[in-house]
């Protein structure tokens, strides 16, 4: 319990630093941040362009870090999942890897094309969090697999929960 309160505070601090990072361009209302009480959607920083992946690896080691799991139809990085991102951020900031491909996935419900976009948003949400933790944006690529690569082939909530994820592929 105490731990989760600590995490919540840390999370808000991260969100705050994110506002400062993002604030270089222009001031943004707080509703655009993680942890805000925004009713719909999960706002992303949304203005740090992705680099062109040409010449960069398309595969990485997926075994080093645990995936980040998401709620149904959500791309919000939950507090309980945030420390997974923090471990990856520390790893990359220590120069242990050249970069990471964040692979976003959705469960099988919903249209395939919508799930491609949803998976991408899950990958981007993790990317944004890594950036807020000080990881160089140029070392993070995103790749959405939508519902095309389930971790669990089952068709129930237990399987779907494992499939709504962002996987870290380190290269």
């Amino acid at each position, binding site marked *: 319990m105490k731990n989760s309160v600590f995490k919540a505070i840390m999370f808000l601090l991260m969100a705050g630093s994110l506002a400062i990072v993002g604030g270089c361009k222009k001031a943004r209302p707080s509703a655009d941040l993680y942890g805000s009480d925004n009713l719909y*959607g999960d706002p992303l920083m949304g203005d740090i362009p992705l680099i062109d992946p040409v010449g960069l690896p398309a595969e990485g080691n997926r075994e080093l870090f645990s995936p980040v799991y998401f709620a149904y*139809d959500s791309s919000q990085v939950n507090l309980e999942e945030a420390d997974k991102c923090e471990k990856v951020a520390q790893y990359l900031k220590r120069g242990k890897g050249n970069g990471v491909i964040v692979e976003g996935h959705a469960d099988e419900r919903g249209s395939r094309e919508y799930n491609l976009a949803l998976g991408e*948003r899950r990958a981007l949400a993790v990317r944004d969090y890594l950036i807020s933790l000080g990881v160089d944006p140029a070392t993070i690529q995103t790749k959405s697999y939508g519902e095309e690569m389930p971790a669990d082939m089952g068709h129930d909530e237990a399987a779907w929960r494992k499939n709504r994820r962002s996987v870290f592929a380190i290269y």
Partner: protein
Amino acid sequence: MMKKLTLLLGICLVVSSAQPQRVIDVAKKGEGKIAINLGSYRAWNDATSRTFMSVLKADLNRSGYFKVTASGGQISVAGTFKTENSMQADVQVYNVATRARLLGKTYKGAGNSASTLAHKVADEILYAVTGKKGMASGKIALVGNRTGSKELYVCDMDGNNLKQVTSDRSIVVGPCWAPDGKAVTYTSYKRGYPNVFMTGRSKPLSDLGGLNASGTISPDGRSMAVILSKNGNPELYIKNLRTGLLTRMTRTRNGNEASPCWSPDGNHIAYVSDTSGRPQIYIIARNGGRPVRLTSSGTENVSPDWGKNGLIAFCSRIGGRYRIAIANPTAKSMRVLETEWADYEDPSWAPDGRHIVCSRTTKHRSSIYLLDTLKDSPVALISGSGDWFSPACSP
């Protein structure tokens, strides 16, 4: 807003007035099928001739307008089918009551394409009798996983003549025909990341950082609607295919965009956005401006396909299952097709503007079905041998 509605109304009026009145009126509800008799048509008994006759009969029955009969009938088809050097079908179509000749033509085809020729003849007979465009000569692009990877396939509208198009051992998502019906755009991971490709071209149509998906060529062939996340969030863009210039259409930091499709005149795009909290269908003018929300009922509405008939077919989640619905963007009306307990998804208008091809999933197996928006029961086109999904009909 008013202006937009008037524009949409314009589309529908043009489409409906383009149908000339023919000899026999077809009831709007699809009732009272026209009895058509092929008894006077002469064909030999070799395999090619038998294929021609059986495909022709099946096409006429599947069209929804005809019922092939062995005796009597309102329409009589006479003529001969010959297979000496190449195939040749002489076809005369008569209105039995008035003795008026509605069609008298000779069709020729290469040696091995009896079914292709039969599809052509079926569409010509339908047009001669009803003045309506048929679907028999159309093609379906679809995705299948029977090889263990998701590859692109193409088949005829009756589900036969299935051919594997890609062999990339990767993942193909969301095929869509170019407006000339000669190429298919699709998303593939064959280069590692999701990029938009077109059949017949090795270079991707879009390979920017992040997501490149749902590439859909405009009716004039000059632009492509596409979902890109290069600026940090999945958004709808239009790419000028000649200059490569990108126009960003949406700015929804709180949401995803997906599944764009063009209106028949190319002036509007219908697409999916979840900025309201759940995926719903919106329409935006090609020149930008404020999107108008089309759907409100159902917990989610996805996969729009804007037919040449002016109607938008889409997939609606109602009572826990996916069903096919049709919206009239002018009248702002919507109706849901009657289907039995299964999930029907990914609708695509057939070239006749009457039928819809879609995927049907039951017990976690997916196959391709043909739905009649007027009356007939659903028909399985492709099932078994793996899963089949994301069908797209040629124009």
